[in-house]
């Protein structure tokens, strides 16, 4: 009987992950504070963090839930504006207010996720893609024009919402990155996550196993929207000025590209590809004219030669790696399904 797994105990795994992550935070913060990493590069790193949250959150809807939402930027926009409106009006100083602002951004985006998800998730496949695209564009148009209806300044239309406190730092960005990855991980590795994956693999079979499809689709979609809202809030505090134009269809596509290129259903794939796809264009600024062409060709070439994305559905697990180091890799190869899924 082979019931004992060659893995280190779960809690020890959590502790090791936490310790390494804390070390990363302290090291990164120290390097930035001391000036070893220039202001420009620290900005790039923060942007990477924000894009990682966006990609990982979209991966919940795309990779885990198996849907294709094309309006993710809309949730990001809602979170960004909600948080920015709070931050520009609150009497609290910026640093204590910001965590509240982030939560407000996430919560408002999640509320939109429920409102949009319930009708949209009745549709399947491409139609769901199109309807979310539609909602995303409507959010953009509403943000652009809502002041005319309200009669007072809320989003400041095309001119943009300005003077948002720049409260986003390396530390709070990456604490959010860590929390996002942790919470999505714990959700997916539970009965709720399994229900979501089951719906993706075979909805009719999942129904017949007693899984409430509407509830779990909405849950996955809402979680996805929540973290997009968090990323939006961080983005608002990062950039300082918000304009609806930045949250259009193309932004949604940009996030989707990160997820697909990383491999749908692979969190580590999303993290890596969000990192690379944010860093490389920034570092190639010198070749401004060519970089987007190279980016486009890269997309096409990767899809032709590696259609399932760079990481496939593989998920990295530090515990598993350590387990292998300690116990030797005696486990037989079992296709792509490891404990990580």
């Amino acid at each position, binding site marked *: 009987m082979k019931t004992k797994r060659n893995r280190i105990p779960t809690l020890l795994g959590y502790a090791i992950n936490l310790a390494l992550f804390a070390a990363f935070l302290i090291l990164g913060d120290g390097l930035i504070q001391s000036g070893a990493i220039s202001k420009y590069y620290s900005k790039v790193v923060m942007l990477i963090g924000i894009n990682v949250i966006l990609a990982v959150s979209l991966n919940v809807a795309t990779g885990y839930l198996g849907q294709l939402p094309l309006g993710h930027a809309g949730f990001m926009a809602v979170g960004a504006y909600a948080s920015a409106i709070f931050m520009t009006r609150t009497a609290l100083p910026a640093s204590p207010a910001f965590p509240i602002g982030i939560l407000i951004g996430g919560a408002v985006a999640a509320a939109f996720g429920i409102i949009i998800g319930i009708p949209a998730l009745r549709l399947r496949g491409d139609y769901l*893609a199109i*309807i979310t*695209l539609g909602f995303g564009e409507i959010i953009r*148009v509403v943000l652009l024009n809502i002041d005319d209806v309200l009669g007072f300044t809320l989003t400041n239309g095309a001119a943009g919402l300005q003077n948002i406190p720049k409260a986003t730092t390396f530390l709070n960005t990456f604490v959010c990155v860590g929390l996002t990855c942790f919470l999505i991980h714990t959700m997916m590795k539970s009965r709720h996550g399994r229900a979501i994956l089951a719906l993706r693999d075979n909805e009719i079979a999942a129904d017949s196993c007693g899984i409430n499809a509407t509830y779990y689709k909405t849950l996955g979609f809402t979680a996805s929207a929540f973290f997009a809202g968090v990323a939006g809030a961080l983005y608002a505090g990062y950039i300082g000025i918000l304009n609806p134009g930045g949250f259009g269809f193309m932004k949604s596509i940009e996030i989707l590209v990160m997820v697909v290129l990383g491999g749908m259903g692979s969190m580590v794939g999303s993290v890596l590809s969000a990192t690379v796809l944010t860093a490389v264009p920034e570092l190639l600024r010198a070749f401004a004219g060519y970089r987007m*062409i190279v980016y486009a060709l890269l997309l096409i070439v990767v899809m032709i030669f590696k259609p399932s994305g760079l990481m496939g559905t593989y998920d990295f697990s530090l515990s598993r790696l350590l387990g292998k180091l300690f116990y030797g890799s005696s486990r037989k190869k079992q296709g792509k399904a490891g404990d990580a899924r």
Partner: protein
Amino acid sequence: MSLLETIFRQILNGLQSGSIYALVALGYSMVYGIITLLNFAHGDIIMVGAYLAWLAMARLALNPIFAVLVAVLGCTILGMAIEKVAYKPLRGSPRISLLITAIGVSYFLENAAQMIFGASSQSIPAIIKLRAITLGGVQIPGTALVTLLTAGASMAVLTILVNHTRMGRAMRAVSEDTGAAQLMGVNISTTISFTFALGSALAGIGSVLYSCAYPQANPTMGAMLGLKAFVAAVLGGIGSLPGAMVGGFAIGLAEAFVSAVGLSAWKDGVVFAILIVVLLVRPTGLLGKPMHEKV
């Protein structure tokens, strides 16, 4: 201007832009019908067509008729080339990969155009120099007339082509059941190529007509136009050719009326709101066939 005249003029505006949407939507719909791909690069083919028209007239000083030919032929060849280079290697891959490839092609076309022609707009000389005619006391601009007639003729030709020719039958067979069509001796590759050629030719015609109405070419002009045409295709029922036509005119008219009542800032929002409402009531569009999953 009397109210009636205003209404008539808006209907005319709506029909003019609607017929352009319809032509572009047909391309989306045909390609979707045949390989279930949301071809995001389709809108950018229009952009290329507009640049070709500009190149032919402003740079090479060609006669407008030749310019039209250059644009339409150029789009057709481009469409077929994209299919061969970017989509064909992905046959049998997950559909999402195909979609991302289409997005890649779209990015590529936009940025290549920006590199070659610059980010600013190029103005296209007037292609149609026809005086307005007066019908029952109402002026109909020449471009509107030509647009409607050309679009109508193109759609008629397309309908005949799809319903009454060998190639059209092959297209319908492949879109119904690719595997069965192949077993019956239909050459899948040729059929797909032909579909892309046809769709891109319609986009080429659309690009010329669009250039008549808005005589400017810029690298991102295809994005929003493509998106609206795509919405039109879905609204009518993607995969259905009459649906694409109906959807195109519906979007054109809706936009014209929203603008006419002074809400042009909300135009895009209204278009998408109509789409959402229609999809929620009829999940496969106005003329689309309902889907059933066999258990």
